[in-house]
């Protein structure tokens, strides 16, 4: 039972990071119908920039407390990523808005690899350890279930950010313009919405969220790396599709569900596929020696954790392309 609760806690934490990233995908997709492949790499840039800034601040003003240092790092990262998001939209995507569908997609892949390469040039290929500014001593709300303060902060702040985004989209003038542009950007233009500005704003907001998610991701795992964006990027995309792409609520639900499935799956995959637990198999001569001394014969170990996202993505797209809550889009593309 403790294991199960522990996996739920881990899943919620990872899931809320996925959800933040998924929001960026889903907003851009909702408005442009484009999968912004480079979104995961914006997350990576966010993490590495904040790392650099935090190290710099720690060196220059060592007297500054941990929280202000983190805040400085975070805000610089967010600013840089917002700028980056704007530049990407302006330079790579805007000119291709009316091109055949494959063109912006291929450009997006190019941008993604360009960002990775540049990060590799600047920060090298090594894994950098990310300073643990919030204490990592785990709390124990229930016996046997651990949660670190970092994880608590991640959960709370991502909930706050998501609420903020929902309010922004549903209650403000900017949000209304965004929804109108997503609905039909030509008509929105006729109604006096500056669609170019709205699209750029969408990219900026999405990139800002990705930067926050990057800092969270790195603080949680304690590392940053030039290729760290790929895996959360692809998983967040899966989350967006799972929830129903183009739908903000869906992205959040999808992120959390994916995080839970992944961490529970990883926790139990090994023992679930352990042939020693199957009486018929365990009796067979070939396995008896392996299983005898408490050994195991796991067909799939937790190394396969990463395939969950892809399998879920495939299943959702094939059986329920609308996602958990969303409109059908898979053959609109």
């Amino acid at each position: 039972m403790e294991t199960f609760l522990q996996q739920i806690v881990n899943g919620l934490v990872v899931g809320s990071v996925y959800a933040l990233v998924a929001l960026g995908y889903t907003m851009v997709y909702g408005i442009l119908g484009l999968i912004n492949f480079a979104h995961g790499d914006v997350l990576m840039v966010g993490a590495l920039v904040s790392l650099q800034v935090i190290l710099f601040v720690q060196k220059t003003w060592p007297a500054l407390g941990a929280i202000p240092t983190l805040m400085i790092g975070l805000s610089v990262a967010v600013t840089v990523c917002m700028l980056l998001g704007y530049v990407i939209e302006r330079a790579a995507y805007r000119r291709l808005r009316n091109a055949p569908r494959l063109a912006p997609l291929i450009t997006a892949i190019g941008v993604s690899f360009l960002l990775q390469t540049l990060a590799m040039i600047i920060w090298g290929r090594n894994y950098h350890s990310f300073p643990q500014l919030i204490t990592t001593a785990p709390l124990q709300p229930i016996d046997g279930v651990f949660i670190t303060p970092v994880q608590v902060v991640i959960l709370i702040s991502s909930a706050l950010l998501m609420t903020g985004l929902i309010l922004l989209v549903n209650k403000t003038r900017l949000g209304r313009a965004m929804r109108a542009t997503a609905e039909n950007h030509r008509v929105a233009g006729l109604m006096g919405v500056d669609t170019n500005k709205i699209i750029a704003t969408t990219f900026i907001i999405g990139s800002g969220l990705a930067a926050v998610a990057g800092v969270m991701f790195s603080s949680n795992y304690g590392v940053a790396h030039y290729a760290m964006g790929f895996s959360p990027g692809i998983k967040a995309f899966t989350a967006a599709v799972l929830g129903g792409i183009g739908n903000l609520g869906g992205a959040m639900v999808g992120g959390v569900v994916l995080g839970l499935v992944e961490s529970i799956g990883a926790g139990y995959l090994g023992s679930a596929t352990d042939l020693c637990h199957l009486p018929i198999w365990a009796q067979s001569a070939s396995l008896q020696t392996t299983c005898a001394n408490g050994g195991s014969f796991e067909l799939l170990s937790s190394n396969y954790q990463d395939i969950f996202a892809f399998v879920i993505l495939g299943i959702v797209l094939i059986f329920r392309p609308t996602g958990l809550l969303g409109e059908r889009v898979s053959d609109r593309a």
Partner: protein
Amino acid sequence: MNELAEAIPWLGSRNPKAARHVVLALMMIAPLIAVLCGNTWVRILDFALLYVMLALGLNLVVGFAGLLDLGYIAFYAVGAYTWAFLASPHFGLHLPFWLVLPLGAGFAACAGIILGFPVLRLRGDYLAIVTLGFGEIVRIFMNNLNYPINVTNGPQGINMLDSLSLFGWDISRHIPITENFKINSLVLFYYVFLLFVVGSVIVIRRLQISRIGRGWAAIRDDELAAKAIGINTRNMKLLAFSLGATFGGVAGGLFGSFQGFVSPESFSLMESIAILTMVVFGGMGNLGGVIIGAVALSLLPEILRSVALPVQQQLFGHVILDPEVLRMLLLSLAMIFMMLLRPAGLMPAHSRYSRPELVIAGKEKA
């Protein structure tokens, strides 16, 4: 071959016959020139030919049928691992190449169908991301299938693969002509690969102008209309996936025999993207363009490497951009700028088999 002739801009259109001869001659003497510059360059040419084959296979899927496949390298992996399983000391099997190569191609084709079935209904970017997932799943399995039973030997990969032997003659051995002069095995590999590439070009060209090829073009330009005129889109798409995969499988087998070693590292997403870039760079749907794209993008990083490294040494005293970084930089920039400036590629496909304006108009409506 006509497509190849057009690779030479002005001669190709004025005097295709002469251009064809020039191209043929170039293909034949390329390794002999390269051998003068050192064995590395012959090796690079060999790899360029493998990339040409991969790009041709991917072009069949992306360029002809319009199905964006980001997991293409998985089929290459299937071919290479088939070779590794059936012709290496790993399982103690040493089957002859005329058995292993078709088996690898067949397995790859099956993998293509396995991938094709679930993604039949998907188009565009969704298809791209699911195929990417397929490629990653294959790689994850290659990495982890060393436990509980050692199938793939995990990240270490499998080594000491058998080399290609034709009629009992191992082409990885140098052929001594006289005491001091021998025919380099790398050169031999080049000609063998060239044979396969030429064969592929002929097959693919025939396919393109056949009923099947026209069916693919129709699906690419407007799937609904293609269905309406009686094209079995399901079978056509599956055929595209499996045929495309077949070429990947053959190339994979050749790669295994040439390299003598396979590991999951060779089949990363980056390689899928690199092949896609070659197709896009040269011109999707145009065989000549794709070949030029593949040759250019596999040779350019190497040329850059040999030029840029000494220059960096001279200027900064140490190497700032290592070859792998240079390659990634080149590929990603090629992808972005090609799409922005010349979206149809260096050599755009002929309008007879491709109507880009139709594609644009169709998408606008949707």
